[in-house]
């Protein structure tokens, strides 16, 4: 009797499960695609890997935020695939020759194309740009990238007026050096010349915005029905934490995209992402760190690999104010004691490039000959240590290595620990931390040695050197200070001749590498899987969250 009661419960349970699982029989479990096989579905499914905090162009500061912005909006200038500038909404790139830049380098005049339109048909005017840039600088918006544009007249003052009254704020806003002279002309005045200003104008915080829409809807303007842009796609659907859907903009003023739809999912787990790819739910997928070799050995997947260098350098950074790192010989010793080549070849399966200098290949300013003296050489490293007075390594104070805990970082940290132990006999104490605790530690300069990763905001040494190595600079957390470097940096910042400017930066980089406040380890290489049906993908070192996301309008699907 009780057997029946119990087993009937079991039977029900099993039946229920079978019904569930059989209800999803045939079909690949994927979405999108399908339908008649005559025309190939032009729906691209990619992974944004998380919900963006905001997609407001002025406020966006992380890759997951500006990738959607790039599909829906376009600015005065943009980047080509080789990272040179191109004119987008502007008719041409301003230069001294065409009068777009004043001879003293302080006034920029942009002429807009007359045919650029918003997706609802209205024309894009210079006023839209003026509104956007002033909004970017507004203290009440508290945009992250505002400080990048402090060279504009009145920008810093306006941005610093958070606690002032409304009248003062309005006055300061009016005195910001951005003016729409007429519908098609925008003039920007700088307080001092900034040779990289045009690159800054190609970045998303300066994209045009619709004052009428933002005034009417306030913070809700980024919801799909109000998110009006001037780019090749429009945002039609946003299911929070799940996915965003973009459809081709029928009113797009430029070359219409071949894709009809882009779906950006929000899968946060890398294993789940590649599982989705293999289940035909995504066309592009990242690859879990450490599995690259297995993928290269897989007969099917190996044909779908896409690799290209990213403009990202990873390095070990030292707190040069704390012993033993206040001694340059100790730093140089550690730089020389790490076998980067083995790391990249063996641990990272050849994905990436060993790095001997700071600026990565693909960036202007990359110097392949720099840093050769730091090639792996344990004997030399020991000697340098001895010269520093530490022939007996037990005399060294405890050295901690701090990093934000993640798969890749764990691997590199343990690798470094092994290297220093085997080659120098030094015991590195590993201290993984959660991300915020780590950044606070570094920003307050309470660490001994830490992991440092830097990626390009724009492709220029201007973005890679002064911020990190200038005395007291905002992102200089090594405590490094060298007046020679500072002098060169000051020169380069206002040098209007590009060749000369890059030469100055090259000299500056040499100084930094000699002083070794950081030990570059490797340059990142992107390693992703792309379905063979995807054609026309254009990758750059400046890609955001998704490969080729600067040029998704050129992508189409075959097969």
């Amino acid at each position, binding site marked *: 009797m009780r057997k029946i009661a119990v087993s009937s419960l079991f039977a029900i349970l099993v039946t229920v499960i079978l019904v569930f699982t059989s209800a999803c029989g045939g079909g690949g479990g994927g979405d999108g695609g399908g339908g008649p096989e005559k025309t190939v579905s032009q729906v691209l499914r990619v992974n944004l890997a998380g919900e963006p905090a905001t997609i407001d162009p002025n406020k966006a500061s992380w890759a997951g935020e500006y990738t959607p912005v790039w599909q829906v909006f376009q600015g005065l200038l943009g980047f080509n695939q080789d990272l040179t500038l191109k004119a987008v909404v502007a008719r041409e790139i301003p230069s001294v020759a065409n009068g777009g830049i004043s001879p003293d380098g302080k006034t920029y005049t942009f002429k807009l194309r007359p045919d650029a339109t918003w997706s609802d048909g209205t024309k894009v005017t210079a006023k839209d740009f003026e509104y956007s840039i002033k909004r970017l600088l507004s203290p009440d918006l508290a945009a992250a990238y505002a400080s990048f544009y402090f060279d504009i007249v009145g920008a810093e003052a306006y941005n610093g007026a958070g606690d002032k009254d409304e009248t003062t704020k309005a006055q300061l806003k009016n005195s910001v050096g951005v003016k729409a002279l007429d519908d098609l002309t925008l003039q920007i005045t700088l307080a001092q010349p900034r040779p990289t200003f045009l690159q800054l104008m190609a970045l998303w915080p300066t994209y045009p915005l619709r004052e009428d829409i933002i005034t009417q809807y306030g913070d809700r303007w980024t919801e799909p029905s109000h998110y009006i842009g001037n780019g090749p796609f429009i945002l039609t659907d946003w299911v929070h934490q799940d996915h965003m859907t973009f459809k081709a903009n029928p009113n797009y003023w430029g070359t219409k995209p071949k894709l009809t739809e882009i779906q950006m999912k929000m899968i946060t787990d890398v294993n789940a992402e590649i599982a989705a790819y293999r289940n035909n739910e995504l066309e592009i997928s990242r690859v879990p760190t450490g599995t690259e070799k297995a993928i290269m050995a897989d007969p099917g997947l190996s044909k779908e690999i896409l690799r290209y260098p990213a403009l990202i350098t990873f390095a070990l950074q030292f707190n040069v104010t704390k012993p033993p790192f206040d001694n340059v010989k100790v730093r140089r010793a550690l730089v020389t004691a790490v076998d980067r080549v083995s790391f990249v070849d063996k641990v990272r399966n050849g994905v990436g490039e060993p790095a001997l200098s700071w600026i990565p290949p693909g960036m202007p300013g990359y110097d392949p000959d720099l840093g050769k003296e730091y090639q792996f050489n344990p004997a030399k490293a020991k000697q340098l240590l001895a010269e520093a007075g530490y022939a007996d390594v037990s005399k060294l104070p405890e050295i901690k290595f701090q990093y934000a805990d993640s798969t890749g970082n764990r691997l590199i940290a343990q690798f470094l*620990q*092994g290297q220093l132990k085997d080659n120098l006999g030094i015991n590195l104490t590993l201290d993984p931390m959660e991300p915020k605790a780590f950044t606070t530690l570094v920003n307050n300069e309470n660490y001994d040695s830490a992991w440092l990763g830097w990626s390009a905001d724009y492709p220029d040494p201007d973005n890679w050197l002064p911020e990190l190595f200038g005395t007291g600079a905002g992102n200089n957390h090594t405590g490094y200070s060298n007046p020679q470097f500072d002098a060169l940096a000051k020169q380069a910042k206002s040098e209007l001749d590009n060749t000369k400017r890059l030469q100055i930066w090259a000299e500056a980089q040499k100084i930094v590498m000699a002083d070794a406040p950081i030990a570059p380890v490797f340059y990142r290489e992107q390693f992703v899987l792309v379905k063979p049906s995807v054609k026309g993908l254009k990758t750059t070192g400046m890609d955001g969250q998704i490969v080729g996301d600067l040029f998704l309008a050129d992508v189409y699907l075959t097969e």
Partner: protein
Amino acid sequence: MAVVASTSQPHHTLWGDAFIRLRRNRLAIAGGIVILLIGLGAIFVPLISPYGYAKQDLDAILQGPSWGHPLGTDALGRDVLTRLFYGARISLAVGLFAQAIVLAIGLPVGAFSAWVGGRVDNIIMRLVDVMYAFPDILLIILLRAILGGTIYMMFLAIGLVAWVNVARLSRGQILSLKQQDFVTAARAMGASGRYITLRHLLPNSLGPIIVAVTFNVPRAIFAEAALSYIGIGINPPTPSWGNMIRDGYDVIFAAPYLMIFPAIAIGILMLAFTFLGDGLRDALDPRLRR
């Protein structure tokens, strides 16, 4: 007289009796032996294994099982079998000591609350509610920020967030036992609350509590694995089974065995604790005569 004397049982205390019965339970003994073996292996691994747990061999990365490495190597070429045994130290320690903290806090709090009842019970249960509703993660992050990623932090963190369950359990047990006749009888005979609790209520309520604890040991190990998964576990290169599962999870598409082996290890330990715990429960139950 003689007949009665020969059929009555020799005098045993509750615990002595329990021990005899435990000895007869083969599964429980097997469980105990396995735990002992794992423990011994964990202690003596430096003598047995030619590898250190941190020794990297960059030419032998992510290799499957072979003669030199019976369970394969991990992403930095370290021997998995060796790390598994070193990891046993951490996992066993975390499992046991965290549970010790759980029992040390949870049992008395629950029992006290149930025995005293009334207002005091109410207030204590509300405090338990607050502990429950509390985001464990936050507490653990804070503990980690203060104590660093040491094993003591693990004990404390897991123990502090897990004791509430045992408190509720022990309170529940005591509450239902409190009303039973033998308690009334003891009280009538003049026994104090403390005596009754310690001598009668606790031993009788131990059944589900022991089961809960034997299940909680692996749960503590999992908690450690989950914490390692989100990035607030024990500092590397110290291997713990949680760390190893996490490392294996990261490369599961390339080397599934890296995750499977520590999972199997946890399973074996779990089985061992289960059999032992069952045996203990059966041995302590005075009514189970088979």
